[in-house]
Every structure is written in structure tokens, then in C-alpha cells.
């Protein structure tokens, strides 16, 4: 194990106020530590010295909850491919490096404090249709719905999205298309998701627009930043599903469901 001396430039901001970069020395950081453990060490020292520790989101620290969210040297989740911030390890950096650390920036993700942002827009998009309407207890035997292995595997590829928002942060338009396409795509490609496919697609896409995410102009920075390697092919599928659903809506109208709870 070796120790690294690093120069950090960390974004500091309080809610609703302008932010700025702060220079912080991170000395003698073990290269086995994760990026967040490096931040823990930095915070511990800031606290000792009477400073204000850097606020950041994190929870599972194993790349699955989607809570951690730092833009490192201009790249959402940092330089390593298919890796969340929490799974990035310091052995990927060199002694003497300067590292820029910023929040996931997007109009639809307002800063809460320092590196923490509010991603509740993602929840609202899923509330607008990201589900199959099935009541608890009303399901048929699981093996009565057969799903071919290829279809199931593809749905699983989409379902691997952890809702982190790196796709948005990496996009110059702050578009959420990769996320939305993965979420809609999982259900739209399964037999269980067919009955509500059009309604789901229209609902989610419109909510995405309402939340202030930008348009997709096929830059594909999202795919490169995505820690779960969600493919931009899902965007193509969403565009197709959306075109079909809008056409259908224009001609026949999408039927509103009755209230689910009565």
C-alpha cells in the first residue's frame, strides 16, 4: 500500500446561495481507500481543525443504491468505466494529482448542500407510469407468464439502472433520456408491461419534460458515464415507443384508467 498526497478543489455551497471551489489538501491518503473514504479522512481533519466538513450523499457504498453522486475531474462518478463514486478507489489516482470534485449539476437537480443534490424529479417520473398496475394478491402463478430468456435478460439489462443521475450530470443538455428509457424499457419489453405501455411511455416522458430536463441530441455522454453500462439503444426504443404511443393517442386517445384504489 502506498500513500498519496492530493490537492482537492471541492465545490462548496449552501442551499439557495452561490457556490465556490475550496482548495483542500488531502495528504497521506492510502491508495486502497475508496474515494468516499478519502473524503471521510478529509472531513475528519476538517472537523479537527474547526472547519466545515464537506456534505455528500452516500449510503450503501457498494455501487447499488445510487445515492453517491460526485462529478470528479469533470466526469460524473469519475474516470473509471462502469463505476460509481463509492466504488472508485484511490489506486486509480497518482501522487500529486489535483482533483476537482463537484456535485451532479443539472437544473432539475438543485444543490442541497455542497455535493448533495435533490433528485426527487426521478421519483416523480416513475410515479407518472413506471409500474405495472397489479394489486397485491391478484397475481397469477409466476410460471403462468413465460418470458423467453433473451427477453428476460434484456429487461434485466435495463433494470440494472440504479437511478443515480450520472447520465443527466454528464449530458450537456442535462437530458434524462437514458434513465427514463431504461425504466420504461424494462417494463415495455416484458409481457407484464404491455397493457399499460402507451400510457406509461407518454406519462414518463411528459413528466421528464415538466421537470426541466433537457432534450436528447444524441451525444451519448450518458452511456459513457453510466455506472451500470445502460445502453443508448434503450433511448432508441423509447423514441419508437413514444412515437407509437403519441400516434395512437392522436388517433384513438389513450384511455384513462379508473382510480386504482376503489
Amino acid at each position: 500500500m502506498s500513500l498519496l498526497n492530493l490537492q482537492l478543489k471541492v465545490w462548496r455551497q449552501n442551499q439557495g446561495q452561490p457556490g465556490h471551489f475550496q482548495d483542500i489538501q488531502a495528504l497521506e491518503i492510502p491508495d486502497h481507500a475508496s474515494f468516499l473514504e478519502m473524503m471521510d479522512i478529509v472531513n475528519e481533519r476538517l472537523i479537527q481543525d474547526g472547519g466545515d466538513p464537506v456534505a455528500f450523499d452516500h449510503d450503501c457504498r457498494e455501487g447499488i443504491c445510487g445515492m453517491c453522486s460526485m462529478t470528479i475531474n469533470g466526469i460524473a462518478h469519475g474516470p473509471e468505466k462502469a463505476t460509481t463514486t463509492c466504488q472508485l478507489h484511490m489506486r486509480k489516482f497518482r501522487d500529486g494529482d489535483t482533483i476537482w470534485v463537484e456535485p451532479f449539476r443539472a437544473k432539475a437537480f438543485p444543490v442541497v448542500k455542497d455535493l448533495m443534490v435533490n433528485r426527487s424529479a426521478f421519483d416523480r417520473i416513475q410515479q407518472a407510469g413506471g409500474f405495472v398496475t397489479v394489486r397485491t394478491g391478484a397475481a397469477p402463478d409466476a410460471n403462468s407468464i413465460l418470458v423467453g430468456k433473451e427477453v428476460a435478460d434484456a429487461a434485466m439489462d435495463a433494470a440494472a439502472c440504479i437511478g443515480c443521475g450520472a447520465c443527466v450530470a454528464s449530458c450537456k443538455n442535462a437530458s434524462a433520456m437514458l434513465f427514463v428509457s431504461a425504466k420504461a424499457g424494462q417494463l415495455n419489453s416484458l409481457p407484464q408491461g404491455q397493457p399499460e405501455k402507451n400510457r406509461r411511455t407518454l406519462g414518463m416522458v411528459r413528466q421528464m419534460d415538466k421537470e426541466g430536463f433537457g432534450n436528447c441530441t444524441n451525444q451519448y455522454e450518458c452511456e459513457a458515464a453510466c455506472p451500470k453500462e445502460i445502453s443508448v439503444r434503450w433511448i432508441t426504443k423509447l423514441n419508437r415507443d413514444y412515437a407509437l404511443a403519441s400516434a395512437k393517442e392522436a388517433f384513438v386517445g389513450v384511455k384513462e384508467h379508473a382510480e386504482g384504489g376503489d
Partner: protein
Amino acid sequence: MSLDSKIPSGPMALRWSKHKQDSKLINPKNKRKYTVIVVGSGLAGSSAAATLSELGYKVKCFCFQDSPRRAHSIAAQGGINAAKNYQNDGDSVHRLFYDTVKGGDFRARESNVHRLAEESVNIIDQCAAQGVPFAREYGGGLANRSFGGAQVSRTFYARGQTGQQLLLGAYSALNKEVARGGVEMHTRSEMLEVVVVDGHAKGIITRNLMTGKIEAHAADTVLLCTGGYGNVFYLSTNAMGCNVTATWRAHRKGAYFANPCYTQIHPTCIPVSGDYQSKLTLMSESLRNDGRIWVPKNKADIGKPAAQIPESDRDYFLERKYPSFGNLAPRDISSRAAKDACDAGLGVGPGGRGVYLDFAEAIGQFGQKTIAERYGNLFDMYEKITGESGYKQPMRIYPAVHYTMGGLWVDYNLMSSLPGLHVLGEANFSDHGANRLGASALMQGLADGYFVIPTTIAPYLVTQTPGSVTTSHPEFTKALEDAQGRTNKFLNVKGKRSVDSFHRELGLLVWDKCGMARDKAGLTEALKRIPELREEFWSNVKIPGSGAAANPELEKAGRVADFMEFAELLCHDALDREESCGGHFRTEHQYDDGEAKRDDENYCYAAAWEHTGDLSKPKLNKEQLTFEEVHLSVRSYK
């Protein structure tokens, strides 16, 4: 107070159906008048909130993360059990029930376990209908794998991320209800206190983690689905935010805490690499399907590359000790065997705290491609963390704290000893006894939320006038003041040490004295040191910033303060239980071959601890356990 577990009478296999039939119903018009608070949005919380809302109750759901989808259930990897018998290998509800009771080392409540096994099959149906992308066979049907403690293949899975997929399913059901207006979701809200009015839980106090605002919420009943307390050990496989606060605060207000000493140490985790370490990473137990666990037979071989150690100089200790279960022996047994090997000086890697998990044979047999298909994400994760490839050399693993079987005591209806307070999922104590088998926590969380509470909540609610208590009640005013007072108290200590430094010290102490092996002397010492550390915490902790904004240090302080109190109860319970069972191993109580020695004559009970106001003198209440179907016997996996 006496403990009435409210177990229905009659033959075991019919109890749950009979109970469902006998339970009172509330008519749909009236359901709307009842408000239910659900704290937690993991498998237990999301499934309960969604289902109760479908039934017509008004639901308010809370979690401390920024989205319900991030609850710690998301991290479960391996799978979920169900007695579907899709493999036609002889599985049945009875066999799952039997395996779970035996796996729990005869310290679970039989009737609850039977209900769990019955509901297991419905869970899979429900999740499949929601679009959970379970692994499938070419014919389109669902695939299964094997897990520890079972000889049938009954575990359903979704690549290495079963927890995420099941939670996304429950979260989608929750979203459906949020959209319909049945659930009001409060994210980034931490519960600080239960509010008790005339002896009943009628609400909670929360802190908004973005603004710092402390708020009161009233309801007709409160459900705690707040997960386990593994982070009392500081290092564990749990997410950083997992805490005991919700259950501990409820305990202080009258809910009994049962069997806190039953903690699970998972055998396949990545070993500790340094003192900066913030958490340990679990690798799914499913790896043990194909990986073989060994250490060198000779100390002289320890520093050598594994490939240079010939077959004959390797000790495949699980296969040797437990020939019929081999590498799939239950967790407590496998963990202890690894510890024994390391204690004997045969451990590998830094500090000698590791054993090999070797895939060479499986790769030889099936090819790297197949192994990568089965476990690719786990191999990737291992490589990211350690910088080594599990395809090229054996992985190194060591046991780590993973799950907590103990929790708030609940009756058959999932109600705690504090009337009106229900407890679901890992937060309660009931179904896993002294040891949980793999793939059964997800099953329990979803059974509790989707299928049990929707039935068992009604018998309580019918006794309550809906909306009878509001936040203008003086108890709410008082609870708000108390919570604000506690926040100010934290900020005013202005000491010298960070919250983390205290948490780490507490964790090391508890791991050392009350971890994989426990004895009277160590526990007695821990009971002396914990109060001292707690005192130092309250006089020397340093929390920067204010209470009126986002302040992660303040959040951690609240959680660590509760761990400091809870740790004492954990050690009391471990000291009281003069036997070894499941995850609780008292070195004084073992057979000559080192196996755990249970004492059914004196300890066949669930220990339900009552808060007396004096942390050094908790009061023990016992729920005697009876075994009608699965007869008490020595648990053998040989």
C-alpha cells in the same frame, strides 16, 4: 406485563388461514378514515405502504434516503426463497418451514415461520406480475439456485441484484399508490421519536434532513420497517445510514427489544484492509455454490501464491468438517470455522484474517464464461475493491457483521408490546430465531408487508376511533420540544472528537467482546466500558454546523448516541444467554469438537427486554418457545 404472542390455535398448517378468516374486517368506507404511518421504504415498508394504500387506508411513508428506492434492501444480492418446487426436487411449504426452524437453531416462533413459508409462494407470483426480471430458463420459466442450509434448490434471483429488483418492484407499487394519492411520501425524513398517547403509539417526530425542520405526524397506528442494527459494530455490510434509532426510541417508550444478541456474521465478505475502512463488502453466499473454501495446512505456506500450494497441502475445512453440506453449511457455522482457521494461525492475507474462496476447479469444469455469467458482477466488485482478479487467483474472504435476527418483540399480528406500534422486516425479531438462512430476509420483509400486515392490522384498528389524536395533542408538543432539545444538546457539547471516532471505538469494542465469540469476562468488561464511552461521547463530541440546515454530522450523532445505549442491552442479552445457539456463540458452551451447545432446558425462550429507565438494569421478560412440529434436536449439518 405478560407477553401474549396471540398464536392461533389448531393444527400448524391451518393456523394462518384460520387467523385470516377470524380476523376482523374494516369496510372500505371506514378504511379511508384511518391513517397509517409507515417508517421505512425497504422491502417491508414499501410493500406494506403500497398494499395498505390499495386497501384504502391513508398512508404516510418515511425514509431517510433521498428516494425510497435507496433503502438498504437494495443491496441484497443473492436471492429470495420460496417453496414453489419448480425444480421438482421435493420442496414443499413444510420443508421450507422445517429448514428455517432448524436453521434458526430452534429459537424462532414456529407458527410465524410456518406462515412465512406459506406466503413465500405468493411473493414470487406478486413480484413476477410486477415485472421483476427474475432469472429464467430457456423455456421461459423461472430459474433457481441453491443457498446455504438447504438441500433443495428454491432460491429465486435476478442476476446478483435480487434485492434491487425486488425493491424496485415494491417501489413501483408504492409509486402507483403515490400517484393515486393514497400514499404521501416523505423522503430525507428521519424519525427521531415515537409519540405515545394514553399508552398507544399515535405518531412520530421527524427531522427533515434538507432543512433541519423538526415535524410532528399523527396517525391511528405506526409501522416501523426500519431495518437492522448491524452498524452498532461500526464495520458491517450494512449501508452507512442503517441505524437502531427508530426501534431504540420505540423501546425507550415501551416496546420490548427481543434477542438483541442474535447477530449474524456472514462468511463471505471482503476482509478489512485498513483503519480508514468505512464499511465491509459482502459477496453473495451464492458464490459458495461453485467456490471452494480453504486455507493452507501448513503455516509455512501462508505467504505463498495460492497456485503454488499443492492440493494435498490445502485444508478444505468446510468440506472436511461438514461433508453433507460442505461449502454450503449455514452462515454461523461457516463463519466460525473460518475464524477458527485464522485463530489457529492459518489465515491468509493482511493480518492473517482471511481464507481462500477458490474458483479454479469450477472454471476448469464450466469455463470462465459460465462462471462470469453466474457471478460476473461479484468478481468485478471484488476486483474494484481489492485490485485483484478472482478469476486468476482465489478470492480472500473473512466473516463480517451482516444481519440482525434480534429486533422489537412482536406478537403474531406483528404488534409490539407498545399498543399500536407494529414492526415489520428486519426490525422485528420473530422468524429467524438465532440464525437466518440465506435468501430468507427478503422473503420475510415482503411476506410481512404484502401479506401479513394487511390482514393483521385490522384487529388493532377496529379498537380505535379513526383520527382521534391530532398533532395538537400536548404529547406531540412535548415530543417536539424533546427532539429539539436533544438536537441542541448535541450541538452544545462542542467537544474535541468527531462522531465517527466514537462510532469506530464503540464498534471495535462490541466486535471484540460481543462478536463471533463471546464469554462472560469479555461481556462484563464491555458492560463496564460502554457507559464510560457513552459518557465521554456526551461530554466530548464535536458537531460542526447548525440544526437548521442539512447537517450529516448531526444525523450521525443521533444514530451513534442511540447505538451507545443499545450496545449495552446487546451485551446484557449476550451475558444472560448462558448457551450457544445460532449466531450467539458463548465459548463456555461448546461440545468437544467446538460445535455450539444449546441449552433447551433453560434457554428455550425469546428474551424480550423492557426498558426500566436505568440502562444498566433492563428487565427480562420471557416468551417460552414451544416446538410442536419440528422437534428440538441438535442441529447437525455433518
